[in-house]
């Protein structure tokens, strides 16, 4: 007994080290949605206020630029609305779609692969998990965790992101993923190789997606590779959304009209 006690005393530091490391590695490698959401909530509780001060400061620097961008987007949307108003046909059975505007308060590209964004709208503004998020140019991501007044967005540029997409011209469905290399490019798989597609075609969200309405632009095809063994195209697309320059987003709330 005495020997054992001495042995423990001798290796106390190593034992403490191993216990801490097991605890940390467990957190690092167990991918659990609920645990991640809990961690997000604790993080916001601890560093939320200070982060807000920091992010407001950085937003202030870009204020003029952001204002100009929003004004330009407004003008563009006004033109489109005017065009539609002149020949408006009421939709037959459309889901009601509401856009909630949100500001990006924090862009967390720290880990480069496990990227995420944080927006200032949370459960108080009726944001729930799995809602789609779009920017002024196209799809940004999907809400992955919700707090009282902030929410975490899983962007396209995250390895665990996937979304059902299709080409705009012919309705063949593919899956959008990211290979964690270039934040301006993403990959589309599962489009059969007999389908004719060209470089420059636009990829849009498909009707199969639960989070997005259909036909929201995602990106433009920049490279097509033929894979001889599997009968699918390997497609690389240029994303429309510029993640390095993102200030305002729209969270999509889809109300299903069940008749």
């Amino acid at each position: 007994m005495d020997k054992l006690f001495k042995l423990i005393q001798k290796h106390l530091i190593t034992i403490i080290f191993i216990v801490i490391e097991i605890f940390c590695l467990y957190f690092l490698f167990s991918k659990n949605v609920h645990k991640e959401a809990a961690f997000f909530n604790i993080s916001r509780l601890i560093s939320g206020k200070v982060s807000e001060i920091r992010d407001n400061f950085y937003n202030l620097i870009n204020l003029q630029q952001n204002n100009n961008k929003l004004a330009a987007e407004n003008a563009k949307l006004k033109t489109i609305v005017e065009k539609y108003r002149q020949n408006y046909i009421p939709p037959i059975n459309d889901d009601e779609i509401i856009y909630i505007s949100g500001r990006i308060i924090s862009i967390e590209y720290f880990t480069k692969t496990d990227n995420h964004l944080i927006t200032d709208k949370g459960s108080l503004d009726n944001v729930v998990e799995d809602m789609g998020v779009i920017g002024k140019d196209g799809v940004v991501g999907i809400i992955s965790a919700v707090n009282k007044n902030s929410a975490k967005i899983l962007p396209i540029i995250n390895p665990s992101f996937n979304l059902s997409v299709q080409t705009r011209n012919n309705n063949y469905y593919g899956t959008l993923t990211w290979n964690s290399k270039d934040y301006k490019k993403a990959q589309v798989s599962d489009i059969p190789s007999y389908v004719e597609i060209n470089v420059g075609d636009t990829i849009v969200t498909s009707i199969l997606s639960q989070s997005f309405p259909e036909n929201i632009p995602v990106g433009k095809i920049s490279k097509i590779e033929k894979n001889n063994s599997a009968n699918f195209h390997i497609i690389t697309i240029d994303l429309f959304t510029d993640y390095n320059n993102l200030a305002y987003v729209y969270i999509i709330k889809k109300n299903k009209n069940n008749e």
Partner: protein
Amino acid sequence: MNKNFKYIILLFILLFFQFFIFDKLFLIYLPNIYIYIFFILILPYNTNKTLLLFISFLLGLFMDFTNYTPGLHATVTTFIGFLRPKILAIYSPITKYEDKEILGHKKYGWTWFLKYYSSIILIHNSLIIILQYFTFYHFLYTLSRILLSFAISFAFIFIIYSFFIRQK
């Protein structure tokens, strides 16, 4: 007492710069720059090893909570805290370590400085990047990221070091 105060001030300055500038400034063009590890490097030689381990763990935990990376920094920083006494023993200078001296070039020379600082910073940066990707699929890409991250972090830590040793 005075000496402890100096280290506490250093900790706050490091965390301030890490949180307000380095976590935010180089959004996506560059790999991340971690200067907070300097605090573990510079702590006096006679720091209690258990205390060192807990300081490293808490520092890592702080980084995890501000960066929303569950477990990543805590794992790596605790490892560095455990490794530090062993690395110091490996690079032991001819004259022995003295408790009162700052772990720097003045007493132990530039070669020692380069060996000690660069090895710990390199281990820290490589572990963080490898644990994130957790694959050697993009081997060259990962390697270039590690080297770039190491070079920039080392440069900034060197600047902070030169400011720190000037304070008396």
